[in-house]
């Protein structure tokens, strides 16, 4: 079953673009990575799915229900962690979390304490006294408190130290193992690569590519590096070679196509070193941006 189903979704803020004609779907139990630079429309998409803003055209369904007409019902099973968290400054952490829990029919007290302990969150401090990272922890606990079936994470790791980031990722993985679907928006490719099974790339409000993270890495490109004496870079100028660079007798390039063609070329040279590896998502990503 598709948990999220977005069809030709478009949002304009007056004349300025939010997103244009975005379509994708996410299956139950998936961790879907949504990547793109700042201002590409990641947050706009999430805000549309949460019905914080209303679409200009097109529609979106979550749990098979339209987000515009069934918002409250849908949000019962949604957890949301925004990139920047803001809460009622005068409240204590515990009171805020209890207020948050009061919106759901669950007895969240046990989970509240488990999560806070895991995230090392002090419950008796005032929100206004918390550092940015600590507010973020409140956001994480608040977003997971009611055991949602679908999690929206909008650049969630900003402000968390590496140790907390790892704990956070472990937590998300554990939730996912319980069957929680995750929609993960980020511009940091490393974390998307670590966590997601499928990615959508958005650029200037439009989806550029949606694919399995493995397909994106394996089937498309290989990163080739060859070191040899008296190397003639031009001899590697095969169809499918891009981004060729030469440096101190080493040639680097990306190759898309039948790898045997490259191997044959290599076998004709006396090489001192060769690596053929999968490019990082970052490197693939740069292709979409050129």
């Amino acid at each position, binding site marked *: 079953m598709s948990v999220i189903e977005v069809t030709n979704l478009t949002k304009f*803020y007056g004349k300025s673009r939010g997103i244009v004609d975005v379509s994708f779907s996410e299956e139950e139990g998936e961790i879907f990575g949504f990547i793109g630079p700042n201002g590409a429309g990641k*947050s706009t998409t999430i*805000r549309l799915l*949460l*019905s*914080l*803003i*209303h679409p200009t055209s097109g529609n979106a369904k979550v749990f098979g229900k339209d987000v515009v007409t069934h*918002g*409250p*019902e*849908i*949000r*019962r099973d*949604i957890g*949301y962690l*925004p*990139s*920047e968290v*803001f*809460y*009622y*400054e*005068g409240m204590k952490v515990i009171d805020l979390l209890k*207020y*948050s829990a*009061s*919106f*759901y029919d669950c007895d969240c007290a046990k989970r509240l304490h488990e999560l806070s302990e895991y995230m090392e969150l002090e419950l008796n401090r005032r929100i206004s006294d918390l550092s940015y990272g600590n507010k973020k922890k409140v956001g994480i606990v*608040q977003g997971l408190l009611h055991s949602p079936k679908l999690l929206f994470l909008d650049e969630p790791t900003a402000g968390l130290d590496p140790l907390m980031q790892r704990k956070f990722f472990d937590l998300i993985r554990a939730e996912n193992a319980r069957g929680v679907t995750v929609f993960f928006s980020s511009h940091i490719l490393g974390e998307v690569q670590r966590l997601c099974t499928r990615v959508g790339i958005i650029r200037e409000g439009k989806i550029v590519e949606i694919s399995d993270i493995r397909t994106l890495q394996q089937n498309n490109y290989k990163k080739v590096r060859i070191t040899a004496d008296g190397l003639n870079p031009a001899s590697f100028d095969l169809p499918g070679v891009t981004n060729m660079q030469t440096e101190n007798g080493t040639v680097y390039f990306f190759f898309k196509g039948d790898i045997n063609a490259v191997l044959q070329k290599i076998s004709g040279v006396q090489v001192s070193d060769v690596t053929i590896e999968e490019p990082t998502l970052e490197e693939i990503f740069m292709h979409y941006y050129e």
Partner: protein
Amino acid sequence: MSLNIYKHEFHMRLRSVIIWSLSAAAIALVFFAIFPVFADQAALMNQLLEKFPPELRAAFGMEEIDLSTVLGFYSFILLFVQICLAIQAGNYGFGLVSVEEAELTADFLLTKPVSRTQILTSKLLAALTSLLVTNLVILASSFLAIELFRDGREYDPGLLLLMLASLVIFQLFFLCVGLVVSLLVRRVRSVTPYSLGLGFGAYVLSAFSGVFGDVKLEYITPFKHFDLAYIVQHEALNTPLVLLNVSITLVSLAVSYWLYTRRDIPSVS
């Protein structure tokens, strides 16, 4: 209506309610304390006032007031309470949804499983409760002030109740108009300039409508819809103007619901 939002909203505003209530009560008590001295020399005072230009008297709503009577004098004091109440209600109206957007907590509330209609209704009821609390404190302090300082002079408690009850409808106007204006502008950064502007603006319009005589400004300002001097003099509300006032309030309320359920919540950056 969601009880948890209602409680939360009421709690957040409690401090403000206490301050406004006590200030309004203080105005009633302190100013009415001079009534005994004043009433003794009322004949003199009325003579003095008659020498003032009628425009000036009109501006302070003193034209038709007999300051030597308990309610005549009290209605004059209540005018200042009215200005305070207008600003208080304006504050709550302008801030009802805009404060959450300015302080960026709207994302938290609106991603909860409640509809916008439920949110707005709960917020409005919480604000209404806050206003009622303020009015109850004013009611108590009014009767206290009058009992303490009326010096044996007679007054009609029923008429006083009518005046005080009119304050509630008066405040609803500022609450709802404030709300609809806050939803019509793109973003309210600070509530106070708006509520001060609306409150004093409405008062000044009412004062000037006295000065210019013929200009029909009374149709738009609640200070005229609920002119206390009129209530004392006629021992009744000015029904057509009150109906007009209530209509403006109801239209603002309906438009607010319409706008809020369609509103795009601005994001952080």
